[in-house]
């Protein structure tokens, strides 16, 4: 697998921001009441993430180390404003549904996290691809949570009613507690079936992580690396 494809695979599967890195929980829990909302939020974030990774990577040698976070925020905020205006202009329905969570993309941990841990150290093309992978991973996560919540909570899939009338939908699943149930359930499944990820031990050091990714903040992975260094 060449390193460009690897970036995308890494974002969607191994370091899936939702189920493995557990980043960006705020939009994950708040907007996934239906599959469409999940896709919308995911793709909006992807758009911002690809651009921000690309731009930040271009400026990585210019931005002084001390003020890098404010600099990143300025870049991300400008991009988010652009996306927000575009959504408002062309997809007003989605804009209404996502509401406050669009401007909140500015402080989404995935975006700042990727800027800090990847885009500030790698070239623009790789960084942009990293953004694509992470963004798609986020979209996949949000969409799958959205599908489950929509099915259980309102008996629909993509807006079409699928459950018979006799089965009343369990409306707790479209409310906040349901978001936690579904997120936990899907994460548990992902762990149970040992999906290849940066944190599942079986995969070990083959995970393509060189000890710099965000998930390496956890001690387990670091120890692996230290042992590797010896």
């Amino acid at each position, binding site marked *: 697998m060449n390193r460009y494809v690897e970036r995308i695979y890494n974002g969607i599967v191994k370091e899936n921001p939702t189920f493995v890195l557990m980043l960006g929980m705020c939009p994950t829990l708040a907007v996934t009441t239906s599959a469409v909302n999940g896709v919308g939020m995911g793709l909006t974030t992807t758009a911002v993430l690809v651009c921000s990774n690309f731009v930040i990577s271009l400026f990585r040698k210019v931005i002084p180390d001390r003020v890098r976070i404010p600099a990143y925020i300025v870049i991300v905020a400008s991009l988010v404003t652009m996306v927000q205006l575009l959504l408002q202009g062309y997809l007003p329905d989605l804009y209404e549904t996502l509401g406050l969570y669009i401007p909140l993309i500015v402080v989404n941990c995935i975006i700042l996290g990727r800027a800090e841990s990847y885009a500030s150290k790698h070239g623009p093309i790789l960084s942009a691809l990293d953004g694509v992978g992470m963004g798609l991973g986020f979209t996949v996560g949000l969409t799958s949570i959205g599908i489950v919540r929509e099915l259980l909570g309102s008996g629909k899939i993509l807006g079409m009613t699928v459950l018979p009338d006799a089965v*009343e939908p*369990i*409306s*707790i*699943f479209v*409310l906040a507690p349901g978001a936690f*149930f579904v997120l936990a359930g899907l994460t548990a499944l992902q762990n149970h079936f040992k999906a290849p990820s940066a944190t599942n031990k079986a995969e070990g050091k083959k995970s393509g992580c060189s000890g710099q990714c965000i998930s390496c903040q956890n001690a387990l992975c670091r120890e692996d690396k230290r042992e590797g260094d010896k």
Partner: protein
Amino acid sequence: MLDVLLALVPATLFGIYRFGMEAAVLIAACMATAVLAEWLFQKAMKKKSTVGDLSALVTGLLLALNLPSGLPVWMACLGSLFAIVVVKQLFGGLGQNFMNPALAARCFLLISFTGRMTDFGTVDGVSSATPLMQLKSGGIVNIWDMFLGTGIGGTIGEVSAVAILMGAAYLLIRKVISIRIPAAYLGSFAIFILIYRLFGGYGLDWAFLAAHLCGGGLMLGAFFMATDYVTSPITKTGKLIFGIVLGILTALFRLLGGSAEGVSYAIILGNLLVPLIEKVTLPRAFGKEGRIRG
């Protein structure tokens, strides 16, 4: 656990007498699901089966007593499943659950199927609100009916205060539960209600207080749910604090909240405070000097 089951017999029998076969089916379904869920989960997780300790039966029964008799059976089973698998087993089984499984399941059902859970059907041909709902809307209730449980609407197990008190007396005599939590709970609740009515310009309104004490799930909650060993404090002072917190919360929810009943939410909120209450009230070990630094 057998004692608790025995103590619940009067309330259960009265519920079946009052609401008929529907209630019996619901109770059986809840208990069966609870036991089955516990057995299957432990089988699947390759753990030792603890079905024999009867705690699943108690959870199933308590949940059923907290449901309106007209609830579809599958919803009751879903509640039972939630109580055992999510609230109890996922946190490590008996002794590890952080809140009362039966009550958590009741709240789960209440949020999920609000319409069904607050539909108490018709009583004696008249579409019935529970006495608490009538009180909330300023109606008049018959306190004697509420005490005996005749002619009023409500969940299966909560209608008859006297049946619950019989069970509670049995538990107290057998020393299964201590009087501290129920006494602090009911006491603080009563004082709060009286003060509230006093400032509302009604004077010392004993009738209102009696109606609130006999109405809804308060008795069932105070004697059977709040006293759950796992989810209540072990220290003596802790028990008192816990009871007072529950009393004030319940009164607040009932008087100022959106719905007429607030016992379930008060108790599970109280359950969450238990670790903190224990932390403050843990007695100093003999020989340790100075103040405990938490």
